[in-house]
């Protein structure tokens, strides 16, 4: 089966004017136009098959949105070759747009002052959706996303969760082969996030819609995407099954031991000391199989232990640590 999306050495470089500090610098830059090349995406390669659900993960500025913009035809790659549904997205932007759906978590495509139904209806004309198919899809999406109660209400009166469900429904009305979602759960409460995640997983499973999702939220990935692509500084860090990554993530849990008074140096075989603040000592657990009981057992009594805190690492830290420790890990799925 040939991939539905294929990226080979894709890069995107933005040319940025060199700015100098101060008033003198501002004046100088009026006459000297020095530019710096910023590599937002740097030689990324991957292939995605039809029906896959892929999480595209990375910290702010990692190049996630730039990659999505290239795959949706908004931006032209500066290097490499990118093919979506067998064509170059930027060169065939409109044809590509007819076969994909795009949801931006932070910018709405709905008409703010009008009922949700009006935005859907406009899309029916823009995407030239046959009336019967439109009616079927609207019925299905309304039921699945529980939108019946607000379909005729102006968008400005909807909650963020309701609006996001409407955005997702609008992106699916024309039966796109690929659904791109750029941080679809950002700002949503727990219940709304759960509804969105369950629906996306279902649409991928039941309808076979390929899903490409960017997010900061690991739970999005966990519930929707079996496959993960991790990037940082525009480079590919990891491409593979989520379970494979989880093993790496587990080893990065952080442990803080707080003592009544400074017990002096503490050495553990199950954890590495990262910071010593006297009465508070910070460790990183080396292995995901190590439990808190193992650590406490090794520590033993008599140190005046007051409190223990075990934290899952946040995603940005995980990616950064991952990048520093395993720069050449990128692998095919």
């Amino acid at each position, binding site marked *: 089966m040939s991939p539905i999306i294929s990226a080979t050495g894709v890069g995107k470089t933005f040319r940025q004017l060199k700015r100098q500090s101060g008033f003198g610098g501002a004046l100088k830059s009026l006459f000297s136009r020095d530019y710096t090349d910023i590599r937002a995406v740097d030689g990324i390669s991957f292939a995605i098959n039809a029906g896959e659900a892929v999480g595209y993960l990375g910290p702010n500025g990692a190049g996630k949105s730039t990659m999505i913009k290239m795959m949706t035809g908004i931006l032209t790659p500066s290097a490499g070759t990118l093919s979506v549904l067998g064509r170059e997205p930027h060169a065939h932007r409109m044809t590509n747009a007819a076969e994909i759906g795009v949801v931006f978590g932070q910018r709405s495509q709905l008409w703010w*002052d009008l009922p949700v139904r009006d935005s859907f209806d406009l899309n029916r004309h823009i995407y030239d959706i046959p009336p019967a198919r439109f009616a079927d899809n609207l019925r299905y999406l309304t039921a699945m996303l529980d939108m019946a109660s607000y379909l005729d209400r102006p968008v400005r009166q909807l909650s963020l969760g309701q609006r996001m469900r409407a955005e997702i429904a609008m992106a699916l009305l024309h039966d796109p082969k690929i659904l791109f979602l750029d941080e679809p759960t950002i700002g949503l409460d727990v219940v709304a996030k759960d509804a969105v995640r369950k629906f996306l997983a279902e649409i991928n499973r039941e309808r076979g819609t390929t899903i490409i999702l960017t997010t900061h939220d690991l739970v999005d990935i966990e519930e929707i995407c079996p496959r993960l692509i991790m990037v940082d500084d525009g480079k590919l860090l990891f491409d593979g099954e989520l379970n494979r990554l989880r093993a790496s993530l587990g080893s990065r849990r952080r442990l803080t031991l707080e003592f009544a008074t400074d017990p002096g140096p503490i050495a553990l075989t199950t954890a590495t000391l990262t910071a010593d603040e006297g009465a508070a000592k910070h460790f990183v657990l080396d292995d995901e199989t190590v439990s808190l009981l193992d650590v406490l057992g090794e520590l033993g009594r008599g140190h005046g232990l007051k409190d223990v805190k075990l934290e899952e690492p946040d995603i940005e830290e995980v990616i950064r640590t991952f990048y520093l420790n395993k720069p050449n890990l990128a692998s095919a799925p």
Partner: protein
Amino acid sequence: MSSILRVIPHLVGIHIRTHMEYRGALLIGWIAQAIGYAGIYASIALLLARFENLGGWTWPQMALLLAFHLLAYALGAAVSFVQFRDMEEKVRLGTFDAILVKPIGPWTFLAFSGLNIEYGGHIALAIGLMVWSVSSLSIDWSPGLVLYFLAALISAAMLTAALMTMIGATALIWVRSRHLFAIYFGFWELARYPLNIFPLPLQVMMITVAPLGFLAFIPTAVMLGKPVPILGDFAPLASLLVGPLFVLIAMAHWRHCLRNYQGAGG
């Protein structure tokens, strides 16, 4: 092409429905715009009452010039001004990206989904002033002149939309483009007056790099049989060609900017 034509009424319709959500604001906007322009025209009329003519143009002739200026501007700006003035925000906030992921030309989407019916006040005032001025002037309305009037009006409206498009498109590369609108409106103000009252370098500018002399003065002078500086007998044809010519230039500029669009931020 047929699919685009089929979508346009729906784009216009959804925009009008949006405006109708705030009917009071729309009506007050129309009245405010008409009063604003009427005030400017009253001050020009007062000046002419004192000096009798301006560069050889009497008040009824000036009224025709002003009416043509306003009507051509309103027709062109309705599909372009607000839409392209706001390109900066569209680029900065990423809403332009959301247009690029639709299977429709972004110019078509922008122009018609933002068709500005707030120009109703401009158009009503311009038509009223034009009817009054034409009834006060002894113009020989031959079929040829009627055709010329309509074609010159369309050409001037096309020129307006083309210039607005070019300025707005610049935001796709520079992110900022509003300052260019300030320059445009500087020349636009001058275009309310007969070209011959300005020094020669400004006259040359107003028919070349900032061709707003074609917005009203040149077509009105042709209709009234008045001499047109620099262009002379070429003025009638030039006033008909300038709109389509600038539309072609604007299309090339728009495509260039679109090809080199970089977005702004994530």
